[in-house]
């Protein structure tokens, strides 16, 4: 076990843990955001750079600070490491800059996007972005692509987190899509028009942090905040059958895997459960699902801004915001 100090809070974690996982052990508002890192997927992370933190002290043995901000999702902790996230102005500024970069080519079509309400990028820009726009040029656009009968790829919204590529690599037998091109012309694609066709392909929709990969059986049916999440299960021969149903009245509008507060799925589910079982009678309903994720589907999430959490001691004044007094 090693001791790490994260934003002034000491936590003991096992050796080999990443800084992000250590922060998640503390939980709450000190956890850095993550757009590309996805716990269940090996090798993910390090790409979006929103989880950058400052390592103010490398370890007890070598107390020098790390010269650059490091990606917390892939950097392992050392004994005696001191990490600053919400208490460091450089980190918050760098994150602001990166959110701006992620948004310059994003269409911001939230009003017509199915992901709106549970979108990681929405939450991220709400918490760390700036409201003004400095980018004047035309945004990069792509045509919509149908990846088989169930999935639609809307590349314009993609932030190239590579999660869907890792998912296809690690939980399906054959991957037919990947990243083509480079720079800001890079895109997710199948190169020659191809259909993603296997039992677990639907999981790429769950891992997508934005609305780039959407469920065609759910597109434009409803808004997520009007639907009620229910935990349910069924006896499925291919997967665990443990899912979340998104219902409105008697209707099952959508089936997804059960996700934790960081949007990471507990267990991947198969396409039959996800796309074909849309009747209440197909499922044994366990009860309402409590959504802890920061989005409009969890009520009153934005009452406190990130930086005013009382458990963070000695906040620099620059990070404090004046709250409206009740």
């Amino acid at each position, binding site marked *: 076990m090693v001791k790490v100090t994260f934003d002034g809070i000491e936590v003991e974690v096992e050796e080999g843990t990443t800084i992000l996982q250590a922060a998640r052990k503390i939980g709450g508002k000190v956890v850095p955001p993550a757009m590309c890192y996805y716990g269940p997927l090996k090798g993910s992370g390090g790409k979006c750079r929103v989880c950058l933190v400052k390592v103010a002290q490398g370890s007890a043995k070598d107390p020098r600070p790390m010269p*650059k901000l490091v990606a917390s999702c*892939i950097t392992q902790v050392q004994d005696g490491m001191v990490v600053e996230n919400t208490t460091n102005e450089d980190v918050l500024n*760098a994150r602001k*800059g990166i959110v701006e*970069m992620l948004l*310059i080519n994003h269409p911001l079509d939230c009003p017509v996007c199915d992901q709106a309400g549970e979108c990681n990028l929405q939450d991220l820009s709400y918490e760390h972005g700036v409201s003004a726009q400095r980018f004047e*040029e035309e945004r990069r656009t792509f045509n919509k692509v149908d990846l088989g009968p169930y999935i639609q790829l809307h590349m314009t919204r993609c*932030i190239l987190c590579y999660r869907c590529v890792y998912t296809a690599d690690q939980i399906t037998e054959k991957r037919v899509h990947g990243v083509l091109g480079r*720079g800001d012309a890079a895109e997710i694609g199948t190169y020659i028009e191809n259909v993603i066709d296997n039992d677990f392909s639907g999981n790429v929709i769950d891992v997508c942090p934005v609305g780039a990969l959407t469920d065609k059986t759910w597109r434009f049916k409803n808004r997520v905040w009007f639907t009620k999440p229910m935990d349910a299960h069924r006896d499925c021969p291919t997967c665990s059958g443990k899912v979340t149903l998104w219902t409105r009245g008697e209707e099952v509008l959508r089936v997804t895997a059960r996700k934790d507060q960081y949007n990471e799925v507990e267990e991947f589910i198969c396409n039959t459960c996800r796309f074909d079982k849309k009747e209440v009678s197909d499922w044994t309903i366990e009860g309402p699902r409590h959504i802890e994720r920061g989005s409009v589907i969890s009520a009153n999430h934005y009452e406190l801004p990130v930086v005013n959490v009382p458990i963070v001691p000695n906040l620099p004044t620059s990070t404090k915001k004046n709250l409206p007094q009740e």
Partner: protein
Amino acid sequence: MGLKILTEHINVPGIETLEVYRKHGGYRSVEKALKTMSPEEVVEEVKTSGLRGRGGAGFPTGMKWSFLAKPEGVPRYLVCNADESEPGTFKDRWFMQYNPHALIEGMITSSYALGANTSYIYIRGELMFVLRILEKAIAEAYAAGLLGKNILGSGYDLDLHVAPGGGAYICGEETALLESLEGKRGNPRNKPPFPAVKGLFASPTVVNNVETISSVPWIVNNGGAEYAKIGVGRSTGTKLISASGNINNPGVYEIELGVPVEEFIYSDQYLGGIWKGRELKAVVPGGSSVPILPKNLILKTAAGEDRLMTYESLSDGGFATGSMLGSGAFIVFDEEQCIVRNTWNYARFYHHESCGQCSPCREGTGWMEKVLHRIEYGHGHQQDIDLLVSVAKQIEGNTICPLGDAAAWPVAAAIRHFREEFEWHIKHPKEATAPGAVYRGKLDAVTA
């Protein structure tokens, strides 16, 4: 003209053949190292020599070699980075084309020092003709028993392969190079783990530049202490400089580190002064990614001392008033050149070459290019200059690999030293976009 280590025999006819190369003392270092020295002794000599990485970063080679992890039962690799693609750099291509055996000799000696039994030369895809020259030379070396099993009866085995890339700038970054060499998409890896621990095929790997590896034979033959005597301070040895731009004698020069920049530009034995007798405006001393310096700062440091062609002197004053030796691509601009257009051209290159893996570089390089394009073509706004500075700052240091820094530095430096020229472009779009127009105002460089 100083001592020649790499280019002494490069003009000898037929030096690309093994026979002529050996007649001029070639492969002596292989015999000496394999028969009389232990691998540790070779590493020690390189450490003593103070040889520094010639690819751009200038990291001490001996130190890099001693960091190589040596776990039991795991192969080690030496990879030569011949993916020379920095705009302005052409020394390695020229050197490999005319003297391929010098690189192969360096590869054998260095591989022996590192205990690698398989080594690779990763060459840029555009250089197919050089690849053929190298393959021919390697075949000769195999036939002469200098490669393969039991080299020169010493019991040491080495296989040397040449692998061409697809011609991507990013594959010159060492971890992207290793990915590409493994047959994957050339995306840089997250560090740590560093290649010295987990590199090619998850084994310990050293990646060195062509020029670095080619300097090793001389060090083995003459001793590291002898090499350390050349040059100034911690910048030891000789360096190949690819000189281009508005000069009378462009080309590759081998210089002893420590030549004054003024002498290098104006002396007839080097660049021979500025083309058509014009005035010097600015110099990019180490390849397109390093900061540009205006005339007053390239000839003298901010403290008023003579600027020398060394790692330390060129970076004197940090990025505020200094630059870097980088890969030694010395690009000279005369008074007729437009800094805005040039900066836009560099930004366009980095936009095109960004791999698109991490967000600041993927989005930021394109953004900078678009803004610079706007300024160059007369549609800029006054706040664009600060916007560029801010975007460059958002990229710098926040990316996976140094390409983000390489894209941000030239833009930030051009604005730092030539802000007035940018302002003139924005204020007078008509004059600035006229054919052949160039800013004639005083170039008031920041000197503090």
